[in-house]
């Protein structure tokens, strides 16, 4: 293979997938993931995220295009890809009639682990994912969070190089979701694991991913670090509530002297502006308004959200796209 693919844990090129009946799930999707990083595919239901994961995990074949995972071609050497990856699907794939320990043991056996190595590995994972006490209970008795933790432990049993997490926190309670985020971040940090996660949650991508790509209608519309994508929206939004309505001219005259402020509008006692870095713009802004005799009651700073990014690149609001996707 080329030298570039060796330095990429995942390299997908021009993937297309047309299902029977003519549904175009992917329309030329390309992206690459550097080893040891978390990469998020972000988009609404039906955008093509799960199809991408199915192709990269050898479950499904692309109609056209190529992909390598951990340096192996998914179409030509699926067995080598399977040994190098762990995969946690949306439907966890946990066998609910078996115990947590049995699920982990079978999974390890399928990857060739045997005997003492297997026992030790299974115990370690049970311990690490807080499942030791429930290890010998049927997985049917597990809570949603426990089942998801077991599924991730199963994906890790053979120490894969690349881990796929398809919607890892969908359907989980907020506090369990926060725990899961901490665990996922730890995996990439401490084990040097490459993680590809798909999510329809802006927060999740923002929290976890070093890089993310927004997927819409089977292709990637934009890719970058969360900060880059948000930074391209030209700065933070500032909303200042004045103690009383102030004359427009005086306020503008005062604020024109504050560096870095743009798009200043005043509506009664509500003042709006944008700044490249709101945190450094606030102190001079406060003193300028004070000097102009317009005391400030409150200041709100809003970092641009990935919602704004999605709106800009996909050309439509995220929530609207989500409903559309779900209706398909």
């Amino acid at each position, binding site marked *: 293979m080329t030298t570039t693919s060796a330095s990429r844990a995942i390299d997908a090129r021009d993937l297309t997938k047309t299902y029977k009946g003519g549904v175009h799930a992917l329309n030329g999707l390309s992206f690459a993931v550097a080893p040891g990083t978390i990469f998020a595919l972000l988009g609404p239901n039906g955008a093509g995220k799960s199809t991408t994961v199915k192709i990269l995990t*050898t*479950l499904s074949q692309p109609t056209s295009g190529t992909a390598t995972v951990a340096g192996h071609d998914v179409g030509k050497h699926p067995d080598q890809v399977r040994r190098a990856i762990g*995969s946690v699907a949306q*439907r*966890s794939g946990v066998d609910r*009639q078996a115990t947590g320990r049995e699920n982990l043991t079978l999974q390890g056996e399928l990857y060739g682990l045997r005997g003492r190595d297997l026992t030790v590995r299974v115990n370690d994972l049970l311990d690490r994912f807080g499942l030791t006490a429930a290890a010998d209970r049927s997985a049917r008795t597990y809570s949603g969070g426990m089942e998801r933790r077991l599924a991730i432990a199963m994906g890790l049993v053979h120490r894969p190089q690349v881990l796929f997490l398809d919607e890892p926190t969908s359907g989980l309670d907020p506090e369990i979701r926060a725990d899961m985020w901490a665990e996922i971040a730890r995996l990439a940090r401490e084990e040097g694991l490459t993680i590809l996660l798909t999510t329809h949650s802006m927060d999740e991508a923002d929290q976890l991913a070093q890089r993310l790509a927004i997927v819409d209608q089977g292709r990637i519309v934009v890719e970058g670090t969360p900060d880059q994508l948000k930074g391209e929206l030209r700065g933070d939004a500032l909303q200042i509530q004045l103690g009383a309505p102030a004359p427009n001219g005086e306020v503008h005259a005062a604020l024109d002297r504050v560096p870095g402020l743009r798009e200043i509008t005043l509506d009664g006692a509500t003042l709006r502006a944008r700044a490249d870095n709101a945190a450094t713009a606030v102190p001079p802004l406060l003193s300028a308004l004070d000097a102009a005799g317009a005391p400030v009651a409150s200041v709100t700073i809003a970092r641009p959200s990935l919602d704004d990014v999605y709106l800009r690149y996909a050309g439509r609001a995220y929530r609207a796209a989500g409903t559309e996707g779900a209706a398909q």
Partner: protein
Amino acid sequence: MATTLDHTWFMSRRHLRALVRQPAYIGITIVQPVVWLFLFGSLFKRIVEIPGFGAGNYIEFLTPGVIVMSALFSNGWSGMTIIEDIDAGVMDRFLVTPASRGSIMNGLLVQQAVIDVIQALIMVGIAIAMGARFAGGIVGVIVTIVAGILLGLSFSSFSNALAPLLRTRESVIGIVQFVTLPATFLSGAVMQPSLAPGWIQTIARYNPVNWAVLAGREALGSNPDWSFIGIRLLALLILAVACTTLSTLTFRAYQRAV
């Protein structure tokens, strides 16, 4: 090959454990054939008095029939596990591991074969308790069980072939049920075929259920005709290979459609 055997054991162990954890299922699996044996045994007790029936004790006549019939009934359910595994994402999980593809089906077949053996042994024990005596002895019992297992392999593979195609429990069970009862009664399972109408005799000749029943009954009797038995076991083996091949093909079609 070694991998396939290893993995077949892992998959079989998974299914057998699940089986042991469903006492209600085990109960029905054991009780149902016993009920058949009692029910038919009592209902048709005097059928042996019909001139030309050619058997002295109906329970002795019926036992291989009910063993084969029970194998048919329980193997038909095999595809349900495939549908459950597809719905729960277990199937896709196996498919992204290096799991031997063959072992996924093999595990189900081993589970069914174990059920067949247990059911058959219980029925033989009850038949003996009800006064039946099998001249063919242990060898006869083993041949009957083998015939039941071979027929069962075909029928569970039939069920396994339908499951990934149809993907709903109702349609798989519907088709399986549609086949089982007619296939049983168009055979010599409960009645001497030579006393049945000509058209039934003709159909029975090509009915695999009949092959299994006749092979078992012959082996359980005195002075069995081994070429008669051998030909039927061979035909059942060929059918089993054909059906397992079919189930492998529909399973591949499922993998392509993912």
